[in-house]
């Protein structure tokens, strides 16, 4: 929650600078984002490689735990794809790429901006921040009507950190491990799945 506010703030400051044309020309002429993105990938990789929790969880619980992130992937892509037919100017593949952010707004919006441009990148940033916010607000209702996995499914990649407290509060501590596992798997998949869908 706090970090999404900080991220929106950085985005907003950049936005104001861009709008006011108060940007050094050096910034516009040299596109440094590609190199920064490579560095980001490297550091994200270190984070994932050093985290062996996901493997431990699979060993401790039954194999059916893998079904949870699979549901989120299939459900998000189909849901986002279906919605795209309501808008004439949105194509299903782009909508699915946005949905494939699973709430991991920072990384997914950066990737989508790089591949498809700033329009879709901004859609991805807003959409995935909303996914986190809606999960924080709607988890109690979702869990009541759609069972104990609903909060985890709605949270997507955020179910391992920012939305974990609300999920365990309304579904019980025993679902915490499943929630963390699903979040980790989805977080790892985002940087592969988003470029794959758009390629």
């Amino acid at each position, binding site marked *: 929650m706090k*970090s999404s506010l900080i991220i929106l703030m*950085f985005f907003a400051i*950049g936005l*104001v*600078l*861009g*709008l*006011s044309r108060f940007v050094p020309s050096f*910034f516009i002429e040299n596109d*440094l*984002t590609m190199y*920064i*993105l490579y*560095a*980001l990938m*490297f*550091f*994200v*990789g*270190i*984070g*994932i*490689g*050093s*985290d062996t929790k996901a493997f431990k969880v699979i060993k401790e619980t039954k194999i059916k735990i893998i*079904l*949870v992130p699979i549901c*989120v992937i*299939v*459900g*998000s*892509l189909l*849901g*986002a794809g*279906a*919605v795209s037919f309501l*808008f004439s100017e949105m194509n299903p593949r782009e909508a699915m790429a*946005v*949905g494939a952010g699973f709430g991991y707004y*920072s990384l997914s*919006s*950066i990737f989508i*901006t790089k591949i498809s441009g*700033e*329009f879709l*990148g*901004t*859609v991805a940033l*807003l*959409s995935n921040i*909303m996914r986190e916010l809606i*999960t924080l607000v*709607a988890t109690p209702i*979702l869990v009541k009507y*759609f*069972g*104990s*996995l609903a909060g*985890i*499914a709605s949270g997507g990649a955020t179910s391992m950190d920012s939305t974990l407290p609300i999920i365990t509060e309304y579904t019980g501590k025993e679902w915490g491990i499943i929630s963390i596992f699903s979040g980790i798997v989805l977080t790892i998949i985002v940087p592969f799945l988003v470029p794959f869908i758009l390629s």
Partner: protein
Amino acid sequence: MIVGMICGYLLKEKKKILQISEKMTTAIIFILLFMLGIGVGLNKKVISSIDTIGWQATAITLGSILGSVIFAFITFKLFFASKNEK
């Protein structure tokens, strides 16, 4: 990224390095989103269609949450529901 993952696995005991790497990740994400903000601000096409962007984002979010929740509900009923009855 795969290079990073291998490094991360090898360095998993070195808590200090991992902490620095985590901070670097956060800092880089801030920088990139700041630059995305600048790019959006400079892009007239994006600014003039900001309402469309908002609606599209909302629709995609609701679609993907609903889709995920429906699939999770089916899985819950089929594979996890017995756990609840204890």
